[in-house]
């Protein structure tokens, strides 16, 4: 008899009952994966095997991303954080982005050639910024799709650059996001409550979890009152 695909029993690794995180072995073994199905993994491989932007376009993106988000004393620029490579992937993954970005990059060169008789990447930073200043501030009274096409291009580039940066390792540090790791949530820090002028209702808090008892197996009386 043929059994379609017979499920293979148990994988209870990482199941623990104390306060610690999944075992380091799981974390280690998982480094090479991010949970793709074979089909999803094949698509990523396929996209990575193609190259959309040419060398000139990549160079222009390197400059443009660093103008949108330059380095400061603590952190690198969006380009340092790898945003151009993210852009190369995302336009292949979201093909509707290809033409607006390729066309927008062409426009940058056209604007620079017209005004400064040189391509955008060869122009001085001052001149590059002079071009960006003409497209960086959308009319606040109009919806995005009614903005001139160059303004739309720059807004798209700003969005993708910012999202690419803040989803990078560098950007997450810069943002000071502190989660995505094992934690014992025990409420908002007192100084934060004070800063924002709110406080916990003692009656509410009395019902909340006592984290020192989290490892003790729950038991209830017949009325559903927790007794452990």
């Amino acid at each position, binding site marked *: 008899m043929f059994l379609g695909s017979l499920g293979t029993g148990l994988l209870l690794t990482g199941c623990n009952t104390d306060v610690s995180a999944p075992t380091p072995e799981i974390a280690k073994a998982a480094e090479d994966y991010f949970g793709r199905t074979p089909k999803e993994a094949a698509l990523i491989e396929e996209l990575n095997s193609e190259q959309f932007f040419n060398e000139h376009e990549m160079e222009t993106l390197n400059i443009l991303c660093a103008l949108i988000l330059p380095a400061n004393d603590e952190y690198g620029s969006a380009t340092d954080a790898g945003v151009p490579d993210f852009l190369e992937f*995302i336009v292949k993954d979201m093909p509707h982005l290809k033409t607006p970005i390729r066309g927008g990059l062409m426009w940058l060169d056209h604007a620079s050639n017209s005004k400064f008789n040189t391509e955008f990447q060869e122009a001085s930073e001052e001149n590059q910024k002079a071009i960006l200043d003409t497209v960086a501030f959308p009319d606040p009274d109009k919806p995005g799709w009614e903005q001139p096409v160059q303004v739309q291009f720059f807004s798209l580039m700003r969005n993708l650059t910012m999202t690419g940066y803040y989803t990078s390792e560098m950007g997450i540090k810069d943002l000071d996001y502190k989660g995505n790791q094992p934690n014992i949530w025990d409420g908002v820090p007192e100084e934060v409550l004070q800063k924002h002028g709110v406080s916990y209702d003692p009656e509410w808090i009395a019902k909340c979890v006592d984290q020192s008892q989290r490892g003790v197996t729950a038991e209830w009386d017949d009325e559903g009152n927790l007794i452990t």
Partner: protein
Amino acid sequence: MQIKESSKIYDVIIVGSGAGGGMATKVLADAGLKVAVIEAGPYFDPAAPEQRTQLKWPYESPRRGASNHRPFGDFDSAYGGWEIEGEPYTQKDDTQFDWFRSRMLGGRTNHWGRISLRFGERDFKHYSYDGHGDDWPIGYEDVKPYYDKVDKLIGVFGTKENIENEPDGFFLPPPKPRLHELFYIKGARKSNIPVIPSRMSMLTKKINDDRGICFYCGQCSRACAVYADFSAGTCLIFPAQKSGGQIDLFVNSMVREVTTNEEGKATGVSYISKDDRKEYKLKGRVVVLAASACSSARILLNSKSEQHPNGLGNSSDMVGRYLHDSTGASRSAFIPDLMNRDTYNEDGVGGMHVYTPWWGDNKKLNFPRGYHIEVWGGLGMPSYGFGFNPNDLNRFFNQKVGGYGNSLRKDIKKYYGSTIGMAGRGESIAMKDNYCEIDPTTVDEFGIPVLRFNYKWSEHEVNQAKHMNDSFEEIVHNMGGTMLQDAPSKASNYGLENPGRIIHEVGTTRMGSDPKTSVVNEFQQLHDVDNVFIVDAGPFVSQADKNPTWTILALSWRASDYIIEQLKQQNI
């Protein structure tokens, strides 16, 4: 080639491995029965390194978690979505029903919100209360013992509140509210809108040795590698296997129909293996359908035979009818008092720590059924889309929007965590004319005729969505905030989502005592065929303003106990 037929005869064949199928597997296998579980998708274990997405960083996905492939983002644990390649469905007239399917062991329980609410006394008898829809043939007192058992087996946090029609249970203690939730509590209470701790199935405290305890990463939608949240695979099927249950798991197997004999009794099922695209048959004494309300209806309607010319269990012509989903409308808002935040790890459990149960008196309102409000916000992990329009909120301060350069860094930090969102999830009225049926002109890639949907919202749901929006606006006003979108218009049904969008579809094989107007009896046994049961949300007579999972689990357990009893008595 002939259909390959198994010689083994199972006591029970269970179609589907989500909440209903998972619970039936656990109860029936624990009772010593030989069980086959058939699942249309692959094996899934959130602890398996190659399948795990929990604790991944956005940059581990080349698309930074964007939702252009998986509908809730790259890290969400649903293999499937509203559209699945090779598995179409169609719409009648101008219907826009969106049908979400997860093809994987555990089904949609791997990514769901874990909001685990009991239906109340009124929810089972709502026709008697307001004259809409129908009463269930059972009441809260019939289901309560099973809700109690589900609470203790699986674990749900919450608090005893003694609110009418919001039954308390055996709760684990809830987590403390986050900062934006304290603002929400303040804003809602100013308008006498109640807020209570959420009731969700994550383990804030140990319940047994098989499951881990929540470590507050806020990623339940990714499924938990230490099994600290409820998924049918990790909490029902794996433990049943571990305790020695006789369970054969058939994954990547798409059931076509329930097979029957000359007497019209079920003999098993036929399915197509996705691995070799061949058809197989399994034999069983009892067939339990748990493929999801619409999928189970589809299987019944496709199981035509001489004895059942209208499809299995469909002598009443009711299979597929009374399909209904929860209503949904949502808005977001900017709260200036939440600007310039200090950062700390605020991930908490996945989803909300507080929520608003229905508080209104529908007899004084222009819609008959209630809704609850879910709330989101906080210092979440960035993913694709974070940083878009980085200083758009400047418009509220008459400051310039747009630009470039290092000032954008300050804008991002200034506004990080200052927006909140609210979503209403309400009860719609089950209607005979909202249904799914077989579309005889379209097949899926397995050659199985697909479903066609016919669904219209009524005035009840549209008026309810208007009320949701009014409530959101009032609460946000009380919080000193500003809505981020204009109020939706009547022309857009006040932002009421398409049916199917809330992924709570129920009612297609509803229970009742009259075989002419219902598909299953109160033990979820087909009126027409006594060895076929349905344990997904198909048998729901009405939806309630509660999420359906906890009731699916309780009713599946109840139906499974009945199956064991009937097998013992040799009635089936």
